[in-house]
């Protein structure tokens, strides 16, 4: 007969597998996705007597740590640590899409992660903070700064103050 821990693990597994898989797919190189997901749930299995009641953020954090550890170990297998996101080939508005893609690529990875947890994983600030191992207030601030930096990359013209604009004309216009 399965123990309570086994039942709790099964529930956590079936309700979070897809989310963990997508989380890892967004961050690991395709060749490593299955290994990272498997290792993440193996860690959860080994700790099944102490899983949080709502394990999603814990699982994401564990997956993130697995990816960090794997990145250290895995150079031989051509792991691309913290891969840069590759755009899909179709888009509703290609030109604008390309702007966002270019801006996204210029964004620091820390900022990408802050935004991704919000926009892709659709986590609450509390959950995202748990994934990153910081306080909720810190995450909220990081997200807000990251969005501001992305906006700045997307529309540099309106970002500087008037004085700065005066001193720093656009490239190619001076």
């Amino acid at each position, binding site marked *: 007969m399965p123990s309570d821990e086994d039942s709790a693990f099964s529930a956590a597994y079936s309700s979070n597998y*897809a*989310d963990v898989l997508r989380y890892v797919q967004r961050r690991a190189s395709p060749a490593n996705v299955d290994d990272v997901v498997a290792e993440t749930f193996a860690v959860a299995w080994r700790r099944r007597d102490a899983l949080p009641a709502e394990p999603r953020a814990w699982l994401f954090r564990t997956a993130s740590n*697995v990816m960090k550890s794997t990145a250290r170990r895995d*150079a031989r297998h051509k*792991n691309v640590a913290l891969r840069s996101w590759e755009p899909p080939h179709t888009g509703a508005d290609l030109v604008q899409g390309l702007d966002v893609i270019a801006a996204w690529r210029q964004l620091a990875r820390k900022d990408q992660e802050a935004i991704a947890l919000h926009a892709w994983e659709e986590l609450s600030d509390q959950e995202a903070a748990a994934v990153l191992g910081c306080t909720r207030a810190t995450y909220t601030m990081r997200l807000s700064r990251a969005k501001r930096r992305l906006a700045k990359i997307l529309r540099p013209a309106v970002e500087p103050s008037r004085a700065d604009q005066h001193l720093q004309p656009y490239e190619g216009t001076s």
Partner: protein
Amino acid sequence: MTEPDILMQVRALNPAPANELTPAEQRRMTQLAVELSQASVRPLRGVTSPVRRRRAPLIAFSVLGAGALAVTLVATNVLGLGAWSGGADAAAADVLNSAAIATLGVTDPVVGPGQYLLIQTDAVYASHGADGNGEITSYLDGYRDELYVPADQDDDWVWMRYAHTPVQTFGPASEAFAAEMQPLYEDELLRAPAGTFYGGSPKEISGDYDSLPRDPSQLLQTIYAKTDGQGQSRDGAALVWIADVLRSGTVPADLRAALYQAAAEIPGVTITEQQATLDGTTGIAIGRVETVTNARQDIIIDPKTGQFIGEREISLDAQNGLPAGTASSSTAVTTTVVDAAPEGGTQYGNHPPGDKP
């Protein structure tokens, strides 16, 4: 553009939208559940990352310094090689078989009570990443690991893993990528009873080592079975497995001899460099080219003493921003006996997976 607009656009960039699982993904989910449920019976297979298996120096020491009986038996096998008709070319087979004989004359280090076997590994691996323009760029990263294995293997093992340091870059994008990656690395000190680093278990593999046949042909068949389905080819996967085992740094002389001889039976194995230098030590490189990837796996041996110097993988094509002929990975291994190990360290190093939110 307003903030909600920006977020909407970022959402549109999501590389893996939260769609329903595909049938293939569902199959993998089921398969993993089965593996996990069997984990209490047998350690997970395929769940631990293959590189952890490759890099974790997990080995049975009970055979270190094994008695004269084992040595004699293997020596008989070595000397009985007149009828040998293996797969490596004749010159490579000669080197491997001579090395096998020579290595049997080497006394394995004896770890006394309270002492540690220190396995020092200096490795270089290529790190790959996107350069921001959709191109892959690479640089070579240096790794230094020190593993302290206690005389009583149930005691704490200690693993000092130093932060990576870039060894070589290849142009501005490569340099920028290396600079970007460096802050991610840090020294990490691990300590775990019986070598259970990262929650893994060395017992599974030490069992494997004890049970490995010392007869070269049988050993090679065992290796083929163990590596079934891995790599680009059966023979390539077998040689990589041999290199991985040798670089653990703790292979006892009789098994080392058998591994050399097993390598001598792998088709396509040749002498690839007469004077190969790894981490300042020169030996002879024996290897095999994987035709699909055009990459070559070498093991480097001191032909006089049979000492294993290291192993490397060389990409014969320019790839991922690395010039043709670059060693995309190489490992040099040295072992010594020491009286003490560093204090401190945790089972999971700096990134415990059990952090609670």
